[in-house]
């Protein structure tokens, strides 16, 4: 099992870096090319959500991403330290209710629509989003 860990300050500019790192490692791990856009978008959504949450609650604390190649799966876990007791449930589109700033809750809905397997662990000490995609071991680039 190979693991890469990345921590970054809660700055929007760093989200792109996190996306690029995750996509590069997904490709190296053997995730199909057709799934790489989904990895890029899902990791970006998870990191954007974490950055927004940190900026609101704990701007000085870093956000952590763990990328693992584990038993034929490429697994990404994004952990933040901002309190999150509940997850906003996906709602039917109501234009009047949508904000033009970050649409909290939409990010997780997007991740759920993209990742093959998603688990969200909210807690008062922060949220952890774990997502994974198939990464056939025989396709791995060495």
């Amino acid at each position, binding site marked *: 099992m190979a693991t890469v860990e990345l921590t970054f300050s809660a700055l*929007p*500019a760093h*989200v*792109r870096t996190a*996306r690029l790192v995750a996509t590069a490692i997904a490709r190296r791990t053997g995730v199909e090319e057709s799934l790489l*856009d989904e990895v*890029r*978008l899902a990791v*970006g*959504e998870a990191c*954007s959500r974490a*950055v*927004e949450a940190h900026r609101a609650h704990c701007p000085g604390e870093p956000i952590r991403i763990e990328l693992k190649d584990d038993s034929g799966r490429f697994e990404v876990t994004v952990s933040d330290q901002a309190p999150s007791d509940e997850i906003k449930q996906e709602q*039917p*589109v109501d*234009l*009047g209710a*949508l*904000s*033009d*700033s*970050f*649409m909290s809750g*939409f*990010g997780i*809905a*997007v991740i759920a*629509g*993209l990742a093959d397997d998603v688990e969200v662990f909210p807690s008062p000490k922060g949220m952890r989003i774990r997502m994974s995609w198939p990464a056939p071991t025989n396709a791995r680039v060495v």
Partner: protein
Amino acid sequence: MDLKLDHHQDDRLTIVEVEGEIDVYTAPRLRELLIDLVNKGSYHLLVNMEKVDFLDSTGLGVLVGGLKRVRAHDGSLELVCTQERILKIFRITGLTKVFGIYASVDEAKEAHGRDK
């Protein structure tokens, strides 16, 4: 890739050309442009997304915000997009029902002309 923005007038439509990545870092610039256009009286916007490499929910939020603003003036905000990777996020979020999405600027102009 950073975000490049441009806009020009075409009859009643203001065409906004967007190139690059729209994410939590760059989306505020698009938001500022849309607000500025509406404040200057452009209420019929067509956002050309054919050169957009990446769009996340922050970018969607900005487009929805723009749509709310132009609708307050009986205006419209429509999109040109044929890229599957971008269309997918509109489908996942159900926003294909909210935005008019066209395959080309000409197609959007033609539809807009019919609706006048």
